[in-house]
């Protein structure tokens, strides 16, 4: 694991307020290149909000957020789009386009970034085999199981070889075996040098990961992020 260099994502005293309510307050967080983090806390604590801030879907109300050496508050929409190509995101609900096949959904980041069809085909075959979905590439998203959807979402998140992978409750809709399979894929990505941040309330997943990877566990509590203790 490589922890050298400037943080890939850096929050300095970041607060986020919505409708007059502070959802996050004065959060400071550094994600070093190649690090592996879990973000945990009860439902509604602000895990998803923090992830959305990290990939620019929300902007901080105050404080400074830097992602891939760029201050997200200063980016225009085009620059934000380019930043998102460097940050892979896996959502709990996967967010597929149901009228496109699995392969087309996974290839979306390649398509929007203007990569050629030949490059897409090569990247796709490799990636589909990696997530074990080579035989399902022509299926439509509604035809997939929860585990297949999550693996496909992970494949889509990493197809552009991003610097960071953010996963929001990636194992929320899958059984234990599938959650372990997904975890192994995320650990493999980390070993390839990717920074990984997983938001989850599943403590058993965090315990299982400890034997595979050196992970920092962060807990959201009282609208702030703290390093979790050994009681996990």
């Amino acid at each position, binding site marked *: 694991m490589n922890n050298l260099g400037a943080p890939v994502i850096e929050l300095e005293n970041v607060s986020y307020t919505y409708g007059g309510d502070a959802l996050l307050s004065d959060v400071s967080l550094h994600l070093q290149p190649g690090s592996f983090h879990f973000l945990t806390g009860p439902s509604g604590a602000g895990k998803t909000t923090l992830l959305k801030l990290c990939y620019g879907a929300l902007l901080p109300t105050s404080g400074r957020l830097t992602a891939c050496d760029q201050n997200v508050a200063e980016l225009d929409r085009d620059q934000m789009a380019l930043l998102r190509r460097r940050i892979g995101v896996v959502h709990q609900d996967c967010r*597929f*386009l149901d009228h496109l096949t699995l392969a087309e959904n996974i290839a979306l980041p390649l398509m929007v970034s203007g990569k050629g069809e030949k490059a897409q085909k090569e990247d796709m075959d490799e990636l589909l085999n990696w997530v074990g979905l080579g035989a399902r590439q022509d299926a439509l998203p509604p035809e997939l199981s929860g585990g297949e959807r999550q693996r496909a979402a992970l494949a889509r998140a990493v197809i552009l070889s991003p610097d960071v992978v953010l996963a929001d409750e990636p194992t929320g809709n899958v059984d234990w075996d599938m959650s372990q399979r997904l975890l192994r894929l995320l650990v493999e990505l980390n070993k390839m040098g990717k920074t990984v941040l997983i938001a989850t309330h599943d403590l058993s997943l965090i315990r299982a990961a400890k034997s595979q990877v050196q992970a920092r566990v962060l807990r959201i509590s009282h609208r702030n992020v703290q390093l979790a203790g050994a009681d996990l």
Partner: protein
Amino acid sequence: MLLPDSRADRVVPPTGYTAHLTLFVSGAMAFLAVFALALSLASDRLAERWATELAGAATLRINAPADQMAAQTKAALDVLSQTPGVASARALTAEEQIALLSPWFGSDLPLDTLPVPQLIEIIEGEPGMDVAGLRLRLGAEAPGAVLDDHTRWRAPLIDAAMSLRRLGWISILLIGGATAAMITLAANASLAANAQIIEVLRLVGARDRFIAHAFVRRFTYRAFFGAVVGVLFGMIGVLLLPEASDEGGFLTGLGFRGLGWLLPALIPILGAAVAFLATWTAATRKLKELS
């Protein structure tokens, strides 16, 4: 930007009522535009014909008892032959006078039994004749002669034709504006209905330009194909209009002439351009709202 990109175009679902709305609106508007264009061109031709055919011409009418008709006609022709600015003057033959009257009285008109005035056609030369002076001389030599230089009714006719042409072009502009408005509404509805798709595309790093292009291409092609169908139906309608004829006057002959038949081919291209601009504007605005 408008080159088809089958994979990129698939990111927006192909169905939805906006697709049918765009096709129908562009088709209907193109159909109407064909008729407005035909009206404009026909009015233009009419104005030009009236202006050129009637300008430089005058008619002399001899109203005289039958026994004086030949003498007064000869006297009038003599005066005209000596009048500066008159290029030629000739008395219409009985057959020509019957042809002029037949639309109203039928072709078997017994002209010799009717007190029909003798008509003399006058063609003006350059620099033109002194109408007032000619009237005075004719009054002295042929008291039954009435000179009509057409100015009294030529100007309003040309004005009417020019107004018709203006109306035709205004109609085309209104059709273009209405098409733009309808396509803007359809594009906005489509963008709103596909907000989740836009969100996913943004999530994976799509720029606004990529998203807008997917919508713009779709609406532009739909508008183009709808307009092609509309123009084809419009052309069939124009072809079925009655041919220009003397009996029909200026209400017939509203179709196209010569190279004018090619002009409707521009309508789908202009329709596509209108759709392109309308969708691009709507998409740019909507994407800004959705950010």
